[in-house]
């Protein structure tokens, strides 16, 4: 009788493990180094992934929701929209979700959860975080269809929410946008964040109107993290500084040493700068001084900060389930922890009082925080 799949896999793993046992400690160490050493492309990929995946925290050793637990958020809906989903954004009375398999923008009714329109954008099915990049604001919905290269060719699409038609398609200048990380809205204007800088777009035509170039050494693939907020362009550099540029003049206004080792992302909050670092740490820093530090696991990226609350997507290592963690920014304390029905998220946005999460397996999960 032939062996079944699990037995054959067991035998293959046994042989592989025995081969590994027979290797010398030095050989194992060298093999581990080969495996663990990131190549330049991988470093870039890691930075891109950090920029594109909104919030992924692999958490360990934390007792989720154990502190001052009162009313907890609830998962109120979980429904499929496509095979794979990417970015998600709310605006113009709808929720806009990137269908990263068929490279479309889906317009979703926030009440019925029905898809009202499917707008084909194109893009790269292998792009980090999933194409198209997406954001709603500045009078339109903005999508970026990336080219499958790091030499430019990425196109911005302006979608008119009144008609669901694409009213402009503009290829970004290759010298300014070899790689595109994101499209963001600040001060009523769309900004395309690239590995070289930030391109301001005309909100009516999608044409570039100005460009702020990052300061970075020649040959560097790009910063660790960049975004526009509070009238400034913020750039977390690979040299361990947080540089800030005025969006109006393009001038660099500050370059502060980052006091958090291994910082990968940073978000400005009313309480200070919230850093996410390698090793799964979140650190709040104000005036260069660390206010609190919380170890959450092995990797960390960007929390969604709403007022005094940070929302983090986490994998709870105690149960293997993904969770949505609500953190008090001022104290660093966990306020609540909500089990999620899906693994992984690609995007998170607020719709009224609810949080909508898009997942890689094509579903949207809606979480409702308790009312005050």
């Amino acid at each position: 009788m032939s062996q079944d799949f699990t037995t054959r896999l067991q035998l293959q793993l046994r042989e592989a493990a025995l081969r590994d046992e027979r290797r010398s400690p030095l050989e194992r160490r060298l093999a581990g180094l080969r495996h663990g050493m990131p190549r330049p492309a991988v470093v870039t990929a890691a930075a891109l992934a950090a920029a594109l995946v909104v919030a992924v925290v692999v958490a360990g050793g934390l007792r989720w929701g154990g502190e001052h637990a009162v009313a907890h958020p609830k998962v109120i809906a979980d429904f499929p929209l496509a095979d794979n989903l990417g970015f998600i954004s709310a605006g113009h009375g709808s929720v806009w979700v990137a269908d990263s398999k068929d490279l479309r923008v889906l317009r979703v009714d926030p009440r019925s959860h029905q898809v009202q329109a499917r707008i084909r954008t194109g893009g790269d099915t292998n792009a980090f975080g999933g194409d198209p990049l997406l954001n709603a604001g500045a009078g339109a919905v903005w999508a970026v269809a990336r080219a499958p290269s790091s030499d430019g060719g990425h196109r911005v699409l302006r979608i008119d929410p009144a008609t669901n038609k694409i009213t402009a398609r503009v290829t970004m200048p290759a010298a300014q946008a070899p790689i595109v990380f994101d499209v963001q809205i600040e001060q009523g204007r769309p900004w395309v964040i690239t590995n070289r800088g930030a391109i301001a777009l005309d909100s009516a035509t999608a044409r570039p109107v100005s460009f702020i170039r990052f300061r970075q050494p020649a040959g560097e693939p790009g910063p660790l993290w960049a975004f526009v907020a509070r009238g400034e362009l913020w750039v977390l550099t690979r040299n361990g500084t947080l540089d800030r540029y005025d969006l109006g003049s393009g001038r660099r206004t500050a370059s502060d040493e980052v006091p958090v080792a291994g910082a990968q992302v940073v978000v400005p909050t009313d309480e200070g700068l919230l850093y996410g670092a390698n090793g799964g740490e979140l650190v709040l820093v104000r005036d260069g001084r660390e206010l609190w530090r919380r170890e959450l696991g092995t990797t960390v990226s960007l929390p969604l900060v709403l007022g005094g609350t940070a929302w983090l997507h986490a994998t709870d290592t105690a149960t293997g389930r993904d969770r949505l963690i609500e953190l008090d920014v001022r104290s660093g304390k966990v306020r609540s922890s909500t089990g999620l029905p899906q693994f992984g998220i690609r995007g998170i946005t607020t719709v009224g009082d609810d949080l909508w999460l898009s997942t890689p397996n094509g579903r949207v999960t809606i979480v409702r925080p308790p009312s005050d």
Partner: protein
Amino acid sequence: MRSTTRSDEDLLSAADARSFEEFYLRHVDVVLGYFARRTGDPELAADLVSETFAAALAGRRRYRPRKGAAASWLFGIASRKLADAQRKGYAERRMCRKLGMERIDLTDADIAHIEALGESGALLAGLPADQEFAVRAHVIDERGYGEIAGELQTSEAVVRKRVSRGLATARRKIGRHE
């Protein structure tokens, strides 16, 4: 079914082949069911299981018990493999190739087994996470209430209640389908 009293963390931290094999046997059906349910494709599920355990074998020396339960670490790998496959449309075989493992062709019986694992997992899929974990741990993994309570740092009574409620919900689901 558990054949020894060694913890998953002990098995994964040990360097010998036998320990990893036992760790594999404890978890392979749950991981296979997870992939079967998420992909709806037994062939893809089998490839993902192979790659997941190959990655776990290759990376087990980097596992640190203080970072969390070994099963969660394994599911972390599994969920990343699944996300990669969903993005690319196929399962990678990088770690399998690195370890010299060949692709395994499935028989009809294998496919039926994998589909059945996916369906049994689907019964638990709609449960709240705390109930699903408790039912899995107690009913499928045959772990005692005390052990589960210790891992979750809660009382046995709470675990019993979660198992009871989870089973009641699962029974109602079966009833609806009958």
